[in-house]
């Protein structure tokens, strides 16, 4: 019987929903609305507060003086309908239904004479929440209306004629480099399987230099790699660098016959067939 009372209140000109352009003027008690239409309806609301606000505004009621029983019944009908149609109703809608029912029952209690008891109208908290939500619903609309980039404002950007743009790369301090290296070494030491050996830097540098010298050439005579002017130490370093490079598959030493001149070349310059052989 509660439903009957409520549906009488629903006979207003304002549609309770617009489904694909067609207004729905009455609540569909006989379920003549296809389920997907109600899904659309449900999608149109941002939650139970939004639905309640809609129900209130639709009847030009003041939030501050909601006829709670009426609104509760209307709300329940929607919720029941959704449930009957097995629509995926968010739990929040049910929580609100419970809250409304509770307020409704409290409203029915005789008002106690002493004013200080219970602290006023049981609707107060709901009204506070509705008002608060309504403010931000409005704020969202206002925000949406603000002229904004991409839709209303288009920033300009003219180009720069070629040749002027010079991206200065960041400065690096040698100390930063060393700190970084120390970081790697410390980490590498945590994995005991990795070992960064103590190694003469001159050897490393010479390895790069030897490679540089051999680049783009075919065979170079081994002895041509050495510069006697560097003295004994220099020659030894070059010799070690060559051995190291040979060992690590970068260089290739070739001697056609015993005592013939030794030649050296970068293995990368080998023929395709050699690559296959190595692979």
């Amino acid at each position, binding site marked *: 019987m*509660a439903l*009957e009372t409520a549906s009488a209140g629903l006979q207003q000109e304002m549609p309770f929903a617009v489904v694909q352009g067609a207004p729905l003027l009455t609540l569909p008690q006989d379920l003549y609305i296809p389920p997907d239409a109600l899904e659309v309806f449900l999608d149109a609301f941002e939650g139970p507060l939004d639905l309640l606000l809609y129900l209130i505004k639709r009847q030009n009621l003041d939030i501050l003086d909601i006829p709670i029983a009426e609104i509760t019944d209307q709300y329940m009908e929607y919720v029941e309908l959704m449930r009957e149609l097995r629509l995926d109703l968010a739990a929040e809608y049910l929580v609100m239904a419970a809250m409304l029912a509770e307020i409704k029952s409290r409203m029915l209690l005789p*008002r106690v004479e002493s004013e200080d008891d219970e602290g006023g*109208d049981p609707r107060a908290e709901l*009204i506070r929440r509705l008002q*608060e939500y309504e403010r931000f*619903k*409005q704020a969202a609309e206002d*925000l949406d209306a603000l002229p904004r*980039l991409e839709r209303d404002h288009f920033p300009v950007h003219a180009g720069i004629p070629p040749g002027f743009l010079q991206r200065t790369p960041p400065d690096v301090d040698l100390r930063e480099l060393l700190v970084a290296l120390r970081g790697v070494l410390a980490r590498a030491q945590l994995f005991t399987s990795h070992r960064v050996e103590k190694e003469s830097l001159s050897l490393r540098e010479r390895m790069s230099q030897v490679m540089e010298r051999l680049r783009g050439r075919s065979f170079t005579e081994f002895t041509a790699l050495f510069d006697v002017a560097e003295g004994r130490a220099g020659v030894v370093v070059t010799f070690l660098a060559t051995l190291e490079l040979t060992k690590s598959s970068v260089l290739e030493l070739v001697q056609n016959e015993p005592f013939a001149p030794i030649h050296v070349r970068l293995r990368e310059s080998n023929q395709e067939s050699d690559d296959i052989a190595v692979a």
Partner: protein
Amino acid sequence: MTSPSLKLIVEAALIAAGGPLTLDQILALFPEDERPDRAEVTGAVRELQLDYADRGIEIAEVAGGFRVQVRSMVAPWVARLWDEKAPRYSRALLETLSLIAYRQPITRGEIEEIRGVAVSTNIVKTLTEREWVRVVGHRDVPGRPALYATTRKFLDYFGLRSLNDLPPLAEIRDPEVLLDDQLALETPVEDRFPAIGHQRPAAND
């Protein structure tokens, strides 16, 4: 070659920047010994604003500084340069964004309390990815929920100089005061809802 006027440099920089430039960014274009006063730069910007009065572009002031943009009057034509339509944002996203803008710093839970529904992770992700919103800290309660606030990019996007430029929030009317007044004049509650009157005694327990 004489050095070009300050105004020419400011104009070219603003037009080339592709986004707002602050006074400091403009000043940084000059070597220290040639650096103009701040007032001179603002003067140049003001002059340009006047020059642009009958042009297709204008200089707007936003949080990030001065931004040259297409005048709204011609924007509909210019917008056709780009194929994609301007993105539209859902009510859920806009409501969440509004709550963060007006109530910052705010937690997700607090947003959900006001909206009455859960805030989807997607919305938070979109807002964060657009760099409109970021985590500025954590509330010191169990769970340490993240506190969200809006960014300068948010202000720039919506053409605001500061949060103060946001449209004012609607006033809240105090329900307690109003209700008490109204109730005094009203008929007893049970008269208004006879249909459910029978529930009364039971509910009292």
